[in-house]
């Protein structure tokens, strides 16, 4: 089995990294550049910067954060939040992003995925899916936009399949139900999506410790995991997570 990719997800609001529960009730947890550097030195495999209030602060904010991070962080950087057009993507890539994550704009205009894939290669187009159980209790999940603030009425699993058809290179699947709860990834959601697509899936939302990370690998329902909480509150720093996964027989990139 290929090594499980361990990603640090940093939600950005203004100049800060913030963390909430269910993408709400945000608290400041640190400085974006310092945190990325620290995780890089500890052996993180990848970093995702998600501008969760892009519309309020404008994009320049996150782009300057990315430019700063690339100075001494030599692992892939993904940037998401508020990217609406090909021009926005160009700007993000020029600022040092290796990949971009798009959600709201792709749901509003799915062809953006195809256009961006053609222009930059699908490998740098990550479609971000924020999934939440339907409020009326029917089975399945609804895709949300605007960082979990807006409903769409679209089935998250069907949307994942469509995103792949349009040329997404990877899917970042965030469970809004689990986000910030430390109750573990939504393995049911991930299994459903992972089985329906052939592109890599990144699990996000709910990681509270090494057991939750290991469950993704043993259930084989994602190719990568994005964690926030456990790194940011130092519940389980990167080296510890990796060594515990290794002990459980799961291959990871060794920390240097």
């Amino acid at each position, binding site marked *: 089995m*290929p090594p499980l990719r361990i990603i640090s997800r940093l939600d950005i609001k203004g100049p800060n990294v913030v963390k909430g529960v269910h993408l709400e009730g945000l608290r400041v947890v640190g400085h974006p550049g310092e945190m990325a550097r620290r995780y890089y030195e500890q052996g993180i495999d990848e970093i995702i910067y998600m501008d969760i209030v892009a519309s309020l602060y404008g994009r320049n904010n996150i782009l300057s954060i990315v430019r700063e991070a*690339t100075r001494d962080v030599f692992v892939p950087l993904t940037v998401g939040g508020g990217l609406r057009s090909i021009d926005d993507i160009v700007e993000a890539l020029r600022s040092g992003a*290796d990949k971009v994550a798009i959600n709201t704009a792709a749901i509003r205009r799915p062809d953006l995925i195809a256009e961006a894939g053609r222009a930059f290669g*699908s*490998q*740098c187009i990550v479609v971000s899916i924020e999934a939440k159980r339907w409020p009326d209790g029917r089975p399945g999940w609804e895709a949300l936009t605007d960082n979990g603030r807006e409903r769409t009425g679209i089935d998250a699993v069907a949307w994942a399949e469509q995103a792949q058809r349009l040329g997404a290179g990877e899917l970042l699947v965030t469970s809004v139900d689990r986000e910030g709860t430390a109750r573990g990834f939504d393995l049911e959601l991930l299994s459903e999506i992972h089985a329906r697509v052939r592109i890599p899936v990144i699990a996000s939302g709910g990681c509270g410790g090494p057991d939750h990370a290991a469950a993704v690998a043993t259930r084989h329902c994602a190719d990568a995991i994005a964690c926030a909480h456990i790194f940011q509150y130092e519940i389980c720093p990167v080296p510890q997570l990796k060594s515990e996964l290794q002990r459980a027989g799961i291959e990871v990139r*060794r920390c*240097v």
Partner: protein
Amino acid sequence: MRVTIIDYGRGNLFSLGRALDHVGVSFRLTDRPDDVRDAECLILPGVGAFGDAMDGLWRCGLVEPIRNAARRGVPLLGICLGMQLLATRGEEFGNHAGLDIVPGVVSRLPEGDGSAHSIRIPNVGWRRVTGTPGAAIGPGADGAMYYFVHSYAHRPSNAHHIMATVDVNGQAVAAIVREDAIVGCQFHPEKSGADGLALLRAFFDFAVARGAAQSPVGKRTA
């Protein structure tokens, strides 16, 4: 020595530049044929599709200058798509002629069988490379882990050009190719942490040594 990065509008040159800063190598970005003609050391980066990238090189008038530099023995590092462009031809979105510096064909990676052990395409993530037995590996180390992101791979027609391979769904795919001073890596050394930076350093050390050996007065132009 100064490195010339070929900038034909494809690739994350910002990060590459930052990695070069980090290893202490000065560089210039260029799309001008004349800069390629007088380069001491070249990097050919690239992301995106094969045909589109070759069109970009042709449009900038860079194809012949790059081929000539390779013939002259100027150290050249092709990264990711830049490594694939070294091939004779590519099969991504139709058939396209490549630079034909490291002969071979660029074709799609094999799909997995859907089992837990299979790799999804695009092949994204950190993969361990295996040095080819007996290969003068130069830059790159057996067992190092690098960050890959690709759906196609260079299949050199000459096996001795393959310095290291990566396993993709049971197939040993070229991870590092080398023909004299021409090196190609399928992964992104600028995104591969300490292992990647070590590879860049090794390549530049080699390029400096090569430059000193070939310089008529034998002096290093560091």
